[in-house]
Each structure stands twice: as structure tokens, then as C-alpha cells.
């Protein structure tokens, strides 16, 4: 009987306990489950504010995550996206959540799991490092523009790279319409425009009164704040390094200050890492509030390594700014290039072609460019100089740049200022077309005095001095290239006895007034073995010319130096000249001093020049000058490959 009682007792106790527990469980279990889901999704709610428990949080299916290591993407209709992604930190696999709203802005970030080194990589678990993300444009993630973890280079690099991959994945998957667009291209463009305009403005298309051809401007819009027009937004395009595609950008100008409000590149397809860096917003920041004058001056921060694209960019910005100043501020602003074009026309009204011949002329410190001007029947009608010289300022160096025209009769066709860095306004008078009228048409061989300008005396003096220098240059150094001078083969053979034939090659090289001709010396098999220079040196006085031929082998070893013609007074008069002791002979044509230039090398003549001879320094010095010039010319022109 006792046993039965025990069994029954235990059974009853167990049954009652079971019923009690199961009742409680039945009531609480669903509630706990709901709580658990809520808790698990809590992080998701944090990264995407506005999320509600009723939202469908099932992950998107059928997406190819590639190497992004994205674990799942939840698309919440009308609210945004939640990414779960992993990456390798220094010490652990780090998993995080990233929320992105419908407008490509990050809404939040949370590290779900990390097991990195405390104090270093583990900082990624610190909510302080998450705060930076809310409100960040997706572009920043694509550009790796986030605050890293101090001291945790490797984990930061992995983090940046992972965020970049996720943001790029998002952009390609959901940003361009293929997977359900977040915003239409039109909406995106409008948003980008509004980001560089004052808040709350409405945009209206603007029909320009001036021709926009050549400016690259594709559209102009005026921003109105309800009462006034406050800003103008330009969409423009230009061609960068990649000639097959355009680069498109928007830029806005404040109508009050005239300065830039903001800039954005909309499209670029240039060289990755170089020209295409123009799409990187780091390169746009410089334009915020930028003075329009700097754009006119093409003074912008360059894109490293992308000279061609940068130049095209700054030129395009200059054109747009210039157009803006003219259209909206009523200013007529000419760029330097335009002033040069205008000046060309003003100085040579009948000029058709302006050929840059600077390279073939003697270089000069104030001569920037020399143009040969031809009319429509291809006749040379004059020479145009572009000169850059020092301006007036005492405190810092300034420059003035101007054009001067000289016709074939050596008459001045005019002066035209094109650029300066003088104190604001001081040089304005010089730009006026009527400025130089008084001397226009005067012969440059007469004493030309340019007009004084009140308050700009020093600039005027600088200009006067430069004009004087240019005239001197034109009269003395601007020598037309004459045809190579012929010389008897005998003289060439005398200079290069081992050569059998000679061929003039002077036209292949630049002109130099002391060099009459250059011959390639060839052997019997018609192979070039060296060169012969036919050149002139000044003799004892200015009227005396000494012409000589001088051979040099391909390796720079000099051959014979042969005097072709001279009227040197030295001949036959030993002891006649000052202290000359006659040690080198009494006839210049046969003086043994000339032998010192034979059988040596150009290099040794450069490093250890032959001394001039006491008493006959004019003749030997003149010879030395020409010899030195030939050697320099030989190397500079790389005659026969010499360098």
C-alpha cells in the first residue's frame, strides 16, 4: 500500500509541476520570441532610423555579392537598405551593419562582432567611431573618406576597403536603376545641383543672351529663393586626356558675391587614378567659395599626374566663369589668349598666319615668343614679339607681358599689353588700344618714346626699356636665315682629309649666324664619319671676318682647322702687335696656335680651353668665341647624335 502511495504522490507532483510549467511557458514563449526578434533587429533599427517592426526584414535574394563579403542585404521599401558585411581585421573577422537611405546617404553603422586587439583594432567596437557615418554621402565611402582607428592601420585598411566595396556594390546594384533605383537619374542630378546651391531655391532654365558656342556650357539655370535670383548654375563639359569622352560638371556662382558656391563633377571617363580623380570630391572642395578671379586666372589646385586633364579643366572653368561675368555681371573679360588674338589682329590687320619661329631664333630673356606674320598671299609682312618683362612693384616681382609688331620695313606696327601682375588698375591704360598710337608706324631705328601714363611711371619705364631691348634684338639678332653658304670641296677636304664626299646637312639643324654651313663627311662607302663646320670668327676689328672649316669625327675628335679666307692684319707682322712674341708664327692663316684645335676632342676643349695669345687677343679671342660656340652648338643641336 505504501508503494502505491509513493507512486501516486510522485505522479501527481510531476503532473502538477508539468502542467504549471507548461502553462507559464505557453503564455510567455511567444512573447519572448517576439522580444528576441526585436532585440536581434535592434541594431538594424539603429542603422536605419525609421524602420518599423512591421517592415519586411527578409534579405534580398539572388544577388551576386562577388568578393564584397556582403552577408545579406535587406531592402526596406521606401526607407533604405541594411547591409551586413564582414572583413578581415588584424586579429579577427569583423562583422558590421551599414544602413543606407534611398538618397545614397549612410544612415548608420554598427559593428556587430569584432575580436581585435584591445586598444587598437578593437576600437572598431567603440560607438564613438560609428558616429561619423550617419549622414555621410555614399561617395565618401567610395573614396575611402572615413576617420580611421588610431594605431590600427591594418584593421582600418580592411574597414575602408570593405566599406568601399559595399558602397560600390550598392551603387552598381541599386544606385543606377538596374536593381530598383533609389533615385532616378533626374532626381540624382537635381539633388547634386541642390547640394551646391543655397537651401530652398527653385531652379529655372535660363536662355543666355550671348552665344555659348565654344564655352562648353550645356545648360544654365538660375536659382531663385522666392524673391530674388540668388545664384546661377552651369552645366558644362570638356574633353580631358581621354579624347573619346567628355567630362561633365556643374558649378554654381553666387549672384551677390560673384564667387563660386560649389562644384561637382557629374561624369568622367578618364584614366583611373589620374585624370579620373576629377570625380573625387577631394578635388572639388577647393571651389567652395572660391574667388571668381582665381578661375579667370586658371589658378586651381591641379590633379596630380594629370596635366592634360587639369589644363583642359581649368580652361573650361575659365571659359564658364568668363561667360558668367559677361552674361550676369556685364563685365567684358578677355583672357590672355583672347587678348593675344585681338592684339594680333590689331597689330597686323592683314596678317593671316602667325607662325611661331621662336625656336629658330637667338633666345633672349625678355623674348617669350616670336611669330612670323604672313598675309593671305603667303608673303612675310612682319614679325610679332611676345615679350615678358619685369614690372613695377618694389615689394615683390611683378611682370608685364605685351606684344610688339614690326613690319618688314622695320616700322613699329604697335604695342599691345596682354597680361600683367601689377598693382590693380595701375596698368589699365596700357591695355587701351589707342595707347601706342603716337609711335605707331614709326621706324624702330628712330628713338621711340612711348607715352607716359600718370601714376604708372615705373611700369611705363619698364615697358619703354623692354621695347628698346626688343628693337635692339630685332635689329641685331633677328637675322633671317640665309641659305647655307657654299664652300669649295678643297676646303672641306682640308678640314677632314680622311673623308671622300661631303653633304650639307645644315638645314636639319637650327640656324646660327656664325655658322655658314655644316657638312656631313662621308667615307668611300658613303657612311658618315664626321662633320665639317664652315664658320666665321671676328678678326682684329669688327670689319674683319675669318672664315674657316673645321672637321670633327663622330666621337668628337677634331680633325684639321683650315682657314678659308681672312683679311687679318696680323699677317706678316711679328712684333708689330703689342707684346706678341711671335712664338706662334707671323701669319694668322698658318699660325701654329690653330694646331691646338686639331686632334683633340670637343669635350677636352670645353673643359680645358686653348688660351688666347697675348698681344693678339682680338684675333685669337674672336676665334675662340666661334670655336666655343660651335662646340656648344654641336652638343645642343646634337649634331650626328652628339650630346
Amino acid at each position: 500500500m505504501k508503494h502505491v502511495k509513493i507512486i501516486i504522490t510522485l505522479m501527481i507532483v510531476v503532473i502538477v509541476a508539468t502542467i504549471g510549467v507548461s502553462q507559464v511557458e505557453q503564455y510567455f514563449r511567444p512573447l519572448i520570441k517576439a522580444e528576441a526578434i526585436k532585440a536581434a533587429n535592434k541594431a538594424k533599427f539603429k542603422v536605419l532610423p525609421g524602420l518599423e517592426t512591421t517592415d519586411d526584414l527578409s534579405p534580398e535574394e539572388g544577388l551576386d555579392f562577388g568578393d564584397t563579403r556582403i552577408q545579406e542585404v535587406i531592402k526596406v521599401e521606401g526607407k533604405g537598405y541594411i547591409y551586413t558585411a564582414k572583413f578581415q581585421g588584424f586579429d579577427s573577422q569583423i562583422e558590421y551593419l551599414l544602413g543606407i537611405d534611398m538618397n545614397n546617404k549612410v544612415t548608420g553603422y554598427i559593428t556587430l562582432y569584432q575580436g581585435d586587439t584591445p586598444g587598437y583594432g578593437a576600437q572598431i567596437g567603440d560607438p564613438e567611431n560609428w558616429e561619423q557615418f550617419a549622414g555621410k554621402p555614399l561617395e565618401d565611402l567610395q573614396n575611402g573618406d572615413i576617420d580611421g582607428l588610431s594605431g590600427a592601420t591594418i584593421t582600418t585598411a580592411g574597414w575602408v576597403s570593405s566599406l568601399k566595396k559595399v558602397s560600390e556594390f550598392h551603387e552598381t546594384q541599386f544606385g543606377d536603376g538596374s536593381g530598383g533605383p533609389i533615385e532616378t537619374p533626374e532626381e540624382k542630378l537635381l539633388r547634386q545641383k541642390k547640394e551646391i546651391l543655397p537651401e530652398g531655391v527653385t531652379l529655372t532654365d535660363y536662355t543666355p543672351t550671348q552665344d555659348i558656342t565654344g564655352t562648353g556650357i550645356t545648360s544654365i539655370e538660375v536659382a531663385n529663393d522666392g524673391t530674388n535670383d540668388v545664384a546661377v548654375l552651369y552645366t558644362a563639359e570638356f574633353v580631358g586626356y581621354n579624347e573619346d569622352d567628355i567630362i561633365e560638371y556643374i558649378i554654381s556662382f553666387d549672384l551677390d558675391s560673384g564667387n563660386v558656391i560649389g562644384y561637382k563633377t557629374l561624369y568622367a571617363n578618364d584614366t583611373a587614378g589620374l585624370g579620373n580623380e576629377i570625380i573625387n570630391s577631394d578635388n572639388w572642395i577647393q571651389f567652395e567659395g572660391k574667388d571668381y578671379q582665381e578661375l579667370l586666372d586658371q589658378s586651381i589646385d591641379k590633379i596630380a599626374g594629370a596635366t592634360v586633364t587639369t589644363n583642359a579643366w581649368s580652361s573650361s572653368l575659365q571659359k564658364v566663369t568668363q561667360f558668367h561675368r559677361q552674361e550676369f555681371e556685364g563685365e567684358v573679360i578677355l583672357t590672355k589668349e583672347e587678348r593675344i588674338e585681338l592684339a594680333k589682329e590689331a597689330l597686323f590687320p592683314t596678317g593671316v598666319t602667325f607662325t611661331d619661329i621662336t625656336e629658330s631664333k637667338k633666345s633672349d630673356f625678355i623674348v617669350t615668343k616670336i611669330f612670323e606674320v604672313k598675309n593671305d598671299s603667303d608673303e612675310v609682312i612682319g614679325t610679332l614679339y611676345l615679350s615678358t618683362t619685369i614690372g613695377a612693384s618694389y615689394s615683390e616681382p611683378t611682370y608685364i607681358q605685351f606684344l610688339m609688331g614690326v613690319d618688314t620695313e622695320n616700322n613699329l606696327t604697335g604695342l599691345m599689353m596682354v597680361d600683367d601682375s601689377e598693382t590693380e588698375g595701375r596698368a589699365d591704360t596700357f591695355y587701351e588700344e589707342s595707347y601706342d598710337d603716337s609711335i605707331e608706324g614709326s621706324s624702330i631705328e628712330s628713338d621711340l618714346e612711348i607715352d607716359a601714363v600718370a601714376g604708372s611711371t615705373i611700369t611705363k619705364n619698364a615697358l619703354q626699356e623692354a621695347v628698346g631691348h626688343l628693337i635692339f634684338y630685332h635689329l641685331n639678332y633677328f637675322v633671317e636665315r640665309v641659305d647655307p653658304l657654299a664652300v669649295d670641296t678643297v676646303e672641306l677636304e682640308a678640314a677632314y682629309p680622311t673623308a671622300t664626299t661631303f653633304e650639307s646637312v645644315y638645314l636639319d639643324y637650327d640656324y646660327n649666324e656664325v655658322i655658314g654651313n655644316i657638312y656631313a663627311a662621308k667615307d668611300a662607302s658613303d657612311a658618315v664619319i664626321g662633320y665639317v663646320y664652315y664658320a666665321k670668327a671676328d678678326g682684329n676689328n669688327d670689319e674683319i671676318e675669318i672664315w674657316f672649316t673645321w672637321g670633327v669625327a663622330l666621337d668628337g675628335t677634331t680633325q684639321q682647322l683650315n682657314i678659308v679666307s681672312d683679311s687679318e692684319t696680323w699677317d706678316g707682322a711679328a712684333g708689330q702687335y703689342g707684346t706678341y712674341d711671335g712664338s706662334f708664327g707671323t701669319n694668322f692663316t698658318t699660325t701654329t696656335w690653330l694646331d691646338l684645335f686639331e686632334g683633340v676632342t670637343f669635350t677636352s676643349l670645353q673643359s680645358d680651353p686653348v688660351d688666347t695669345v697675348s698681344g693678339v687677343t682680338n684675333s685669337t679671342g674672336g676665334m675662340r668665341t666661334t670655336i666655343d660656340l660651335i662646340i656648344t652648338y654641336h652638343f645642343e643641336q646634337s649634331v650626328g647624335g652628339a650630346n
Partner: protein
Amino acid sequence: MAKKEITFGKIFHDGFFKQNPVFVQFLGMCPTLAVTGSVETALGMGAGVIFVLVFSNLIVSLIRNWVPSEVRIPVYIVIIAALVTILETVMQYYVLDLYLALGTFLSLIVVNCLILGRAEAFASQNNPVKSAADGLAMGLGFTGGIVLLGFFRELFGKGSITIWGDLGIQIIPEAFQISIFAQASGAFLVFGILVAYINKIKFRRLDQSEVA
């Protein structure tokens, strides 16, 4: 039973002082050492123990004359286990953070010898009201003990006292905290010191009574 009838005053005096489960009886040492890292977890554990102890004492007392003595221990265990399971479920819903903080020690209340001990030593011999009162007294004594332990450990180890969730106060700046108190070894240290002090008081009293 010829035993002298026990009064409520004695029940509570025993629970708090004379028979304090933590410092005198050394019952339920496992949670005592494990969950006294902060006042909050100690309070939570204490509340859980009070709940189980009161109800187990009550139920055991109600069925004390009906359960055959041969199977009383399994029956007590089933009752306690059921109560603990219910407690766990309820706590998981209402106080998830505390539930997670207590972790497995919540389930281990089942084998807390304090509960089985009181069922065996008191509830099985007294009426339901007194048994429930004993459960409450012992539970409070246990709670007081571990909260005291938690108080010193948290104060020295973390410099703060947290009562509930974010409700807490930072007392000692970080630079002066002694992290060993917050660690497991700190529990032994504080416990030992407290037991030694309590024994000092106890023996002094005994000495005095003998002299008197």
C-alpha cells in the same frame, strides 16, 4: 512534536543574523561567489531566490503531511525545479538583460542547497504561513548577504554602484579602481574578510555572555 513553537520574530532574526545563509550557514556559495560582481546582479539573484524559496517552502509545507518521507527529497526537487523554470521564463521576458547577466546561475538555483535545506529543515516541519515567512526571511538574509558582497566588490572593483540598469552612481574614479575585486578572486577575498569580521562580532558576544 514536542518542539517549542517558533515565533515570527525568531524566524526573521534567524534568517537575517543568527542563521544567515551566506555568512553563517554557508549555503548557496555558488551564486554567492559568481554573481556578486555588481549590486544589480546580486539583487537580481536575491529576488529570484526569494521567489523560489518562498513558494517552495509554502508548497512543501502544504504537502508535508501527505508526501511519504521516502520520496520527499525527489518531490522537493521537482517542485523547486518547476519553480525555477517558471522564474527563468518570466525573467527572460521581463528583465532580459538581468536574465543574460545571471546566465546559467539562474538555472542553478535548482541546486542551491539553501532552498532544499530550508524545505527539509523548516517547511517540512512547520505550517504554511510560518514556512513562507521562513522562506522570505532566509531569502532576504541571502539577498542581504550577497548584496553586501556585491556592494564592496563593485565599489572597489568598478568604482560604481548600480542599482538597476542605468540607475547607478560612479563613486571612485577609474584611476583608483582595484580590478581584482571585480574578478572571481575578488569574491573570495571580500567574502573571507566579511566572514572573519562577522565571526569576530559573534565570538565577542559569546565571550561576553559567558563572562556574564
